[in-house]
């Protein structure tokens, strides 16, 4: 019955979309659909030395409608990354370009926040609300970002905003399975000093219906989630060419961990806490651009209330960037990180220092042709890490007032330092291997990018082909009577990524469209089990794609997105697989304004087709579900 309802709603949605004529009206700043900002790391755009690569800024309007969710969901909806989710709002790791969970570098304001113990980020612990800008950079970039940047990198940015006045807002979302999201923010600036405070809280019972057998359903058990966090930013402009920025972020999460389908009495719990602080000093004068960065990250994880995994790291970094002449610019920098652990399963405290030095050179040979050369060397206590260079180039094949066609190419050598668990684990059932070598990746890619910029219509499309080889791939295996990690495998990756983005300005609003497609081959080239050679790596879908359309008309906004993930083998002999799935989500909302007061109300429907799907084998995911959002902001009162 309600499937028909959904079908008609969809048709209605499309109808609405086609028939409403464009009538002249002004476009207001709204909360329901926000304006794209330039992606920068404090004055130096991410792209500056990333020649040959691409940086995809996630659509801010889409982020605004999804701001009560986490990066896990948004990456699945908007990026070519395959997100492997162990249940709804549960551990979610990334497979970028067919690589493993530890092969995506996640940087928050320039600091890699991947867990030092597990070597990955759980994207279900990264609320969209906590970042002002999110961008995704496919491809290897260890020379720029260090360890883990083999499959790609994700950049979370909080940016200073010195526009004068006071702004405050509250938000309340209510959704299926007892979901509540509450958030508030206060921002103040006098043009010189800015303070921004944000708080958020999310909880869900997560007791959605799970199919056990054709005749039996049950409620998902042991999957409730409670998260909260706060952020404080203080930015102070010392002079027009120098400022200080301090960002603090505390995130707390208490979750039951969803077990496999049909497991009714699981009771595992995970409590996690991360405190992250980064302070930057920026100076831009005749001598160049200077950046001093200090950071501190404290990660704490308590498993089943009795096993502690905690790490602290302090980071100090210096960066210097100089435009040498009209054609050449140079960046050099160094970063020092000190690590201390308190991990029950290590049976001792580990302290480690990682110092890296790096340099980048960008050469605009002719206006149409530029080359970037980057290199990084990291030194780790008692550990030999590889040298990571990269060379990228971009050639404009055609350019006129309205359009640009360019050719890109990039080659690099990359690395991943084995995690602390890999090296120092000494707990139940496993033993770390201090003799592990770092994983090394070789990567080459080439692509074509085309963009057209009209007055009303802008669009761009890009297609990339890449090849990579990762050697010394680390796997935990039963060795004798214990599990231990070994540098056993090599993986040959290749694939195609295509993306499309379009924005149409209309008299009464705008329309934004986007699509991504990825074809991914990740072939096991070396393993101690000959049966696996030539097989697709487990949990790498051959095909994945997503598309969205966002439309703002006067005060109304609506969005439809679809994401598709092909089947994934769940083991390396390529016999058993998890079914592919396609999810359709939609939202509709309206903004209101009265003097200094802004309101926004929206409703969101996830998994509109009520598809019974799994991201990870045997971990149930919810069917159709709803969320209602109310937002209020007061500005410059």
């Amino acid at each position: 019955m309600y499937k028909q309802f959904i079908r008609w709603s969809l048709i209605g949605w499309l109808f609405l979309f086609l028939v409403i004529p464009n009538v002249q009206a002004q476009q207001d700043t709204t909360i329901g659909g926000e304006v794209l900002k330039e992606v920068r790391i404090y004055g130096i755009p991410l792209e500056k030395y990333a020649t040959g690569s691409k940086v995809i800024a996630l659509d801010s309007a889409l982020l605004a409608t999804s701001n009560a969710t986490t990066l896990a969901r948004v990456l699945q909806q908007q990026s070519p990354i395959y997100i492997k989710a162990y249940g709804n709002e549960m551990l979610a790791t990334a497979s970028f370009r067919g690589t493993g969970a530890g092969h995506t570098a996640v940087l928050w304001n320039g600091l890699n926040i991947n867990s030092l113990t597990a070597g990955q980020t759980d994207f279900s612990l990264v609320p969209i609300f906590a970042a002002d800008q999110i961008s995704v950079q496919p491809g290897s970039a260890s020379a720029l970002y260090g360890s883990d940047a083999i499959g790609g990198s994700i950049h979370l940015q909080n940016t200073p905003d010195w526009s004068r006045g006071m702004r405050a807002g509250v938000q309340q979302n209510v959704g299926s399975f007892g979901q509540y999201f509450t958030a508030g923010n206060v921002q103040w600036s006098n043009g010189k000093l800015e303070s921004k405070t944000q708080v958020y809280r999310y909880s869900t019972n997560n007791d959605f219906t799970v199919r056990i057998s054709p005749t039996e359903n049950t409620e998902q058990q042991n999957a409730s989630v409670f998260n909260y966090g706060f952020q404080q930013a203080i930015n102070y402009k010392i002079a027009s060419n120098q400022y200080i920025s301090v960002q603090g972020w505390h995130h707390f999460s208490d979750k039951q961990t969803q077990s496999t389908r049909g497991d009714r009495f699981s009771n595992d719990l995970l409590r996690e806490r991360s405190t992250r602080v980064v302070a930057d000093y920026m100076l831009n004068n005749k001598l160049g651009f200077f950046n001093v960065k200090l950071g501190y990250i404290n990660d704490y994880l308590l498993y089943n209330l009795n096993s502690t995994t905690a790490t602290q790291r302090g980071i100090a970094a210096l960066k210097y960037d100089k435009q040498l002449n009209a054609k050449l610019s140079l960046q050099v920098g160094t970063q020092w990180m000190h690590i201390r652990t308190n991990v029950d399963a290590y049976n001792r405290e580990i302290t480690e220092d990682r110092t890296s030095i790096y340099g980048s050179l960008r050469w605009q040979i002719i206006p149409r042709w530029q080359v970037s050369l980057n290199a990084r060397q990291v030194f780790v206590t008692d550990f030999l890490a590889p040298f990571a260079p990269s060379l990228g180039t971009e050639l404009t094949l055609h350019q006129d007032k309205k359009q640009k066609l360019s050719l890109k190419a990039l080659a690099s050598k990359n690395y991943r330092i084995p995690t602390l668990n890999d090296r120092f684990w000494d707990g139940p059932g496993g033993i770390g291997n201090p003799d592990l070598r770092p994983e090394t990746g070789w990567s080459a890619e080439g692509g074509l990018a085309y963009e057209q910029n009209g007055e009303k219509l802008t669009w761009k499309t890009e297609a990339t082909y890449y090849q990579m080889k990762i050697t010394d791939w680390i796997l935990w295996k039963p060795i004798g009577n214990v599990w231990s990690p070994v540098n056993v495998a090599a993986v040959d990756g290749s694939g195609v990524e295509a993306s499309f983005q379009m924005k149409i300005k209309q008299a009464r609003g705008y329309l934004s469209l986007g699509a991504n497609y990825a074809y991914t081959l990740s072939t096991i080239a070396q393993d101690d089990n000959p049966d696996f050679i030539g097989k697709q790596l487990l949990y790498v879908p051959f095909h994945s794609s997503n598309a969205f359309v966002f439309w703002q008309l006067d005060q109304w906004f609506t969005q439809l997105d679809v994401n598709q993930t092909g089947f994934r083998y769940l083991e390396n002999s390529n016999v058993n697989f998890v079914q592919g799935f396609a999810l359709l989500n939609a939202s509709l909302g309206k903004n209101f304004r009265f003097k200094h007061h802004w309101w926004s109300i929206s409703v969101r429907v996830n998994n509109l087709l009520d598809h019974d799907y799994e991201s990870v084998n045997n971990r149930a995911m919810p069917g159709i579900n709803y969320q209602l959002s109310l937002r209020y902001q007061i500005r410059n009162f």
Partner: protein
Amino acid sequence: MKKQNLLLYVLLAISVAFTACKKDDVVPLGKYQGGVLVVNEGSFGDGDGSISFLSITDQTITNAIFNAENSQNIGGIVQNLKIHENKAIAITNKADQIIIANATDFKKISIISQADLVNPINFAGVGNKGYVTQWGATTDFVNYPDAAVRVVDLDAGTITKTIALDAQPQGILAYNNKIYVALQGSDKIVVINPSTDAIEATITVAAGPSNLGVDANGKIWAMCTSGNFVRINPGDNTVEATISGIKVNFFNEKFTFNKDKTKILYLSPAPFPSTDTEIFAMDITATAAPTTAFITGNNFYGLGVSPDDDVIYVANSAAFQGNGKVERYKADGSKLDEFSAGRGTSNFVF
């Protein structure tokens, strides 16, 4: 929806056909009889345990038979599968379930799952009574306050009694109308009388008795995590022999007998960091441990011998990275053939 309904009708039709068969005088061989059942325990987190059926007559393997027959996953980790009085009983200790199915067609009869059934391991049956060893929850992997044997009414699919025990009850054996339980976390084997469910004797053996078996002479053997084999005379519950120097795994020690039960075959991992696994053969009259391995290979994880032809079945777990394999060897240790099974191939039922 329609597809599922159709499937239901087909299943219904099949089951009607089977019920009809039962009325005949000649009982035909069930779908999953006349072959070897292969247990694939599944990988730790995936709950993807499965049962495979290796048909000896066809020389073919059918994987995931429980899942196919019931459109439902058996779950994980499948610690043990036992056939008892035409019922197949599977014990899983991640989903923590006792799964009872019809042994001939693997149609589910009942699934026992309750909050206090935690870490069940192994099964033995006497009549309609099932005995399931259970470690119970632990916070420190040392103390197991809820260790017990759970008594199951197999027809009703309910737990009727709990016999509290100490220290990781692992292996369990029904023999001569007695239930023998190996307490792996201690040096004890307890004997339970199934008519009263009372513990009527406690046998002190070498430390860490893990799994149990009966030889040609009717003697009970226990393989112990302390590196010993112990031979027990069930007539007077005394230890007749202790053979030391056995290379062990330190938990869930796996062994079996040859066809005429005059030889013990047991599985030994080579010590870390070697990746080899070894199978040793030892006479039941031996006084010392064998020193040279009988069969050597990678990722051996389970062992069985066909009571029909003495063929040795070795479970290869493929280190849980891919599907496991059934490797078959002749009694002299030379390899016959192999079959691709499910994830984490671990055990055999003949």
